[in-house]
């Protein structure tokens, strides 16, 4: 009998183990534990320790449990879309402004307009941040981080070439590059990173906006192919820079943002287009050979036009499934406020992010914070940053078909740069693709 009982117990144990294993591997246990009052928060794996400590502070101060998970940026979009489609528990998540239209149209994320505790922060946020979080008249979150494409230069390289002031227009950029090149200071004075990667669109948009052009018109139709108001002039400038003046390396089409950054840090170039937050590592003696020499100037304009650049932002959003449950939505809104608004009266998380990794913020009051000013001024000019950020424009190609169009747009730019097609033909191809996709999606 004892033997029988022992055998039975062993069998039961094996059955239970198998069931637990199966549940665990399918994620059901996590789901079960994370259900209820817990707020499920998904982010990409940036500043993980910082996020964890801010979550812990929230749990302690507000008394709501948070289940925090993260995934690498490279596959975050796929990861989160799979979660939405599979109806995985997800309440708050980081969202890129580039994904807003497709996420909103798919009904995955919900507007936050009904939450007064969140909407009150709009007055203190940069206008283009509020614009970037708004789709079809509704706002979908609070800012997490924002930045813009900056025009940087190596002060010493300019001095050696006898140049007194940095360029204000793209024509002056050409002139100064030629001067630097002929002085033997740099073979390719301007660094442009135009490899087909996620950064590419920001480089292209900065070039186009600073040339006074746009990719689309007010109705959202393609305008990029217009020879006067589109992207053709900007692309022509790049093509001339590579082939006619030879001031940009023909290898720019295989140069990614990180590789370009390293080359600029090594002192190979006099000018560079880089995300503004890169100024910190560029001016850090431990990481850069041009530390202390890198300065920022307003994005060159095209013959007296505005010094516009492109700005981008990421925000804290709420899932539609969560918004449908009022009590849980209110809990989630508290977490969104804790991260994107004030936590115990201060913009703590955005300040932490800035002081920890140099990530830009989208809330104006932080510019007056003494710690922030001191940090900025140790490697950059805070007034210049404020001035350029005010001239940053929201990307005009953020639509549900953006990703699909960008494949064609990127290859069109590259085809023109390597001399396979003319800039006009390249932009016409990109414009046709845009209009076809717009029609398909409507």
């Amino acid at each position, binding site marked *: 009998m004892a033997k029988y009982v022992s055998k039975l117990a062993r069998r039961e144990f094996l059955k239970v183990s198998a069931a637990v294993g199966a549940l665990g591997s399918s994620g059901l246990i996590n789901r079960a534990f994370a259900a209820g009052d817990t707020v499920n928060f998904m982010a990409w794996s940036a500043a993980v320790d910082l996020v964890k400590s801010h979550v812990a502070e929230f749990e302690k101060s507000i008394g709501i449990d948070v289940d925090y998970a993260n995934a690498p940026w490279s596959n975050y979009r796929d990861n989160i879309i799979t979660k939405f489609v599979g109806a995985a528990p997800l309440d708050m998540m980081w969202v890129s402004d580039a994904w807003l239209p497709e996420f909103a149209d798919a009904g995955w994320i919900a507007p936050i307009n009904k939450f007064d505790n969140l909407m009150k922060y709009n007055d203190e946020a940069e206008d283009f941040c509020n614009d970037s979080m708004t789709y079809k008249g509704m706002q979908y979150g609070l800012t997490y981080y924002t930045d813009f494409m900056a025009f940087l230069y190596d002060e010493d390289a300019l001095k050696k070439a006898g140049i007194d002031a940095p360029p204000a227009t793209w024509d002056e950029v050409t002139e100064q590059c030629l001067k630097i090149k002929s002085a033997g200071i740099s073979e390719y004075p301007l660094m442009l990173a135009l*490899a087909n990667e996620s950064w590419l669109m920001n480089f292209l948009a900065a070039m186009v906006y600073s040339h006074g052009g746009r990719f689309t018109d007010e109705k959202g139709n393609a305008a990029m192919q217009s020879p006067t108001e589109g992207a053709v002039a900007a692309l022509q400038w790049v093509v001339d820079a590579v082939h006619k003046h030879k001031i940009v390396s*023909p290898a720019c089409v295989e140069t990614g943002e990180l590789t370009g950054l390293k080359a600029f840090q090594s002192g190979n170039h006099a000018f560079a287009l880089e995300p503004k937050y890169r100024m910190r590592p560029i001016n850090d003696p431990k990481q850069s050979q041009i530390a202390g020499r890198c300065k920022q100037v307003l994005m060159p304009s095209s013959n007296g036009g505005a010094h516009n650049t492109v700005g981008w932002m990421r925000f804290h959003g709420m899932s539609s499934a969560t918004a449908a449950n009022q009590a849980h939505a209110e809990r989630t809104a508290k977490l969104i406020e804790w991260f994107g608004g004030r936590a115990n009266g201060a913009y703590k998380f955005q300040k932490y992010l800035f002081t920890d990794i140099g990530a830009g913020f989208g809330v104006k009051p932080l510019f007056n914070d003494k710690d922030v000013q001191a940090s900025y001024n140790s490697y950059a000019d805070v007034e210049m940053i404020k001035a350029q950020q005010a001239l940053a424009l929201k990307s005009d190609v953020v639509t549900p078909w953006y990703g699909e169009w960008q494949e064609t747009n990127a*290859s069109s730019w590259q*085809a023109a740069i390597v001399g396979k097609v003319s800039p006009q033909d390249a932009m016409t191809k990109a414009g046709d693709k845009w209009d076809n996709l717009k029609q398909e999606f409507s």
Partner: protein
Amino acid sequence: MSGFYTGLKYTLARRFNYEARSAGLFLFPVMSVLAVVAVFPILYSLYTSFFNLKLTRPHRVPFVWFDNYVKVLSDELFWESVMRTVSFTVMSVVAILILALFIALLLNESFHGRRFISAMILIPWAIPTVANGLLWKWIYDSGYGALNGLLLQLGLIDKYVVWLGDPDKTIPLIANAFVWKEVPLAAILILVTMKSIPVDLYQAARVDGANLLQRFVHITLPSLKPGFMLVMIYETMMAIRHFDLFFLLTEGGPADASHVLSWQIYVETFRNLSFGTGSAMSYILALVTFALAYAIIKMLGRRI
């Protein structure tokens, strides 16, 4: 109910003997796993290919019959990708066959250090594919790459050359990296075939006065046909479906210079999240691969 089970048991026992039943029983677990992880996804992707399934439009997934196949086959970029894939495959397979033959001939000889050289030759094959891709990315880099450094030191170039950024060089350079990785396995397969050629044939040919070239052309090459066929089929399939190097080295660029079929499937499926057209493309690629393998077997097989 018990009558039904007894009937079923009797029918099975009559149709399958004890050994067949035992084999079926032992195979059942692995066949079940294969059905779940291989057969079902393959059939499900076929089913998916008949829908306009775009993950970002979850509420609009119409059944479209063969529209995805028509859309893919009428896309200009698809045919350009096919041509690039063909060009990459021909370039790679020809180079692999020639190099593998020479290496096999070398390793078939007896000389001091043969074992060491055999081990050295296998190294590229042992390197993981991703590591291989990153290695070549460093070699080809236009700014700090080893290739430019070497050529400059040898005085063969006077300034750094743009390698992967030049659309005319992209496919040959990626093919070179692919060949480097694939040649060792091909050489071993050909060497194994070479070892199976009876020595008597060579001795008889010598007696008949055949010189080295004649022995190679009339004995070695014809006897290597099974090995060649195996290498050709395997490497053709590998080259047609190859993705890793295109992903790691160029991401389909510059412009569309390395936009091959496998890359297009990746972009369509995982970047555009269009699972319907992505599945249709995958089936077209699978059919083309099968057709090619069949053609090679028919062409070379009847001569063996």
